């Protein structure tokens, strides 16, 4: 039972990081229709930059965190402006390939600058686990869950109440209508990339505090696909719920099935699940069902 709960909690933490990354992915897909294969690399770049600021300039974690988020905001903005603005209206394979190219470019730049070794964040959270009941939970986990919850709440409020948030939802539901209502669609496109970069970075920094970072972290960008397929590609709620479900299931498989077959099942399970979901419910739990007409 204790083993089960430990796995469950680790799964929820990893899952909520998936949720954050998936949130960024969904945001871009919803408002611009672009499938971002470089989501994991945004996470990677953010995590490395935060680490770099902390280690090289001795900046306290909180400030480094804020600086990184600001930087990544403009980074996402620039990526959209330089690479993706020109691709509007191109066939989907070109856009997919462009983001794949972008992902391989960003990943290798990170490798060139920071190398491939695993690097750890300096001890920010206390090492001793907190005991709740009979469970030992490390402090990083608790902080992660709190941070993710805060971010998700902020974004929910942002989308529901602020003018920009409503404009983003409007663009997502109908680009032409929002254009004619005077919404600056190009600004919204850039903004959605900026926000996506920021949320992924938060995920990256959290995972960096839990496991340390290396370039394999960009795997998160691919794990996002099972998550968004489960939740429905264009649903923000779906991204959050899907992330937690996939994270928990993945850890369960890792805990119970991997010892039986000797490892590897944990990484492949989300993709097997994804194929099954695609076959029986391609629009996911909360996605909009598209009806195609000639």
């Amino acid at each position, binding site marked *: 039972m204790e083993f089960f709960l430990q796995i469950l909690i680790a799964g929820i933490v990893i899952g909520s990081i998936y949720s954050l990354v998936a949130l960024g992915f969904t945001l871009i897909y919803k408002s611009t229709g672009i499938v971002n294969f470089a989501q994991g690399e945004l996470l990677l770049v953010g995590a490395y930059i935060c680490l770099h600021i902390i280690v090289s300039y001795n900046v306290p974690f909180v400030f480094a965190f804020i600086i990184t988020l600001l930087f990544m905001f403009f980074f996402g903005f620039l990526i959209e402006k330089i690479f993706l603005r020109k691709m509007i209206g191109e066939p*989907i*394979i070109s856009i997919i390939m462009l983001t794949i190219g972008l992902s391989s470019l960003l990943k290798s730049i990170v490798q060139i600058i920071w190398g491939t070794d695993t690097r750890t964040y300096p001890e920010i959270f206390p090492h001793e686990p907190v005991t709740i009941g009979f469970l030992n939970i490390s402090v990083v986990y608790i902080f992660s869950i709190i941070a993710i919850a805060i971010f998700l709440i902020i974004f929910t409020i942002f989308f529901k109440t602020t003018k920009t948030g409503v404009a983003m939802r409007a663009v997502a539901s109908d680009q032409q209508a929002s254009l004619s209502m005077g919404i600056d669609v190009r600004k919204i496109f850039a903004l959605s990339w900026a926000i996506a970069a920021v949320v992924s970075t938060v995920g990256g920094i959290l995972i960096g505090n839990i496991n340390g970072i290396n370039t394999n972290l960009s795997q998160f960008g*691919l794990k996002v696909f099972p998550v968004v397929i489960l939740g429905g590609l264009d649903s923000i709620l779906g991204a959050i719920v899907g992330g937690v479900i996939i994270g928990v299931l993945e850890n369960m498989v890792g805990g119970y099935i991997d010892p039986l077959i000797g490892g590897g*099942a944990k990484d492949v399970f989300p993709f097997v699940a994804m*194929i099954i979901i695609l076959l029986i419910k391609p629009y996911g739990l909360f996605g909009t069902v598209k009806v195609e007409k000639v």
Partner: protein
Amino acid sequence: MNYINCGNFKTSYEKDAAIYQTTFSKICIYSFLIGLFVLPFFLNSYLLYIMNMIFISVIAAVGLNILTGFTGLISLGHGAFIGVGAFAAGYLISKFSFGFFIIIPLAAIITSMVGVIFGTPSLRLKDLYLSIATLAAQFILEFIFIRAERITGGVNGMPVDAPVFFGYTIDNDFRFYFFSLIYTIIMVTAAKNIIRTKIGRAFVSIRDNYIAAETMGVDLFRYKLLSFAISSFYAGVAGALWAYYVRFITPEHFTINVSIQYLSMIIIGGLGSILGSIFGTIFMVVLPELLRHIIGIFSHYLPVLEQIFPAIREAFYGLVIILFLLFEPEGLARRWNLIKAYWKLWPFSY
């Protein structure tokens, strides 16, 4: 953009779809092929290695272009399909004492069956959803390569015997050159002909508008699966050749990066163009080798460069894909046609 000479009339569809548009182009193609057979006598083993890599990759790239370029179904799992071909060939070679002319088709047929299995979701899914499903196929197959140790040898890999042709062991670059060249010519010619027939027209109609295609009587179910089968058949042939060539196969040869590399080949060459797939392959095989030489020159001054070479190569891949998509989205095939048109009119370019 197809520039046709004045006076070159076509009175039937067959003539328009002919491979040799004029006698001149027929002469050009045949002399090019003869040139290819003479060429290896003048090459050293390093250049022969590059040529062999190009031949094997051309087969796989043409296969992917049939699926992605002509039928419009995006596959992110082509690298894994090549792996299926390689491991199937390796397993068959280790179990049975067939010659390569049985092993290669058998391996290709096994691969096309696997391709059809993973292509089944394409009936319900398209574009983005399909690319994600094939991405899953890539990871699942990679997992199987590593875990099915009895068949694939797992992470330790699997040695493969060299092919034997009537007592001749094809075990060096020079002999393998002719071996792979003949297979490449057969496969490329077959692809060119598949595209010209009813099947090819059905593929193109599915790509351009699948609802209209269905209304016109194209059986989507059959042709999409057929496209997957043909494409994976090509991947299987390429994989089997690869197994014969490197003679030691491990799962690392068939990662997602390989799939991406093949997609970039056909994008750089030109989607929906057989000639384009060949250009793209040559470009993507030669580019890293050139890069290696350039880095080799500079690493005298900066030894670090040698260590980070893999990263630099990946960065170049990414950069090249992005630049082509932004500035030459129709690929090298279009550029080739423009150059041809220019020289046809030269020096009076108006």
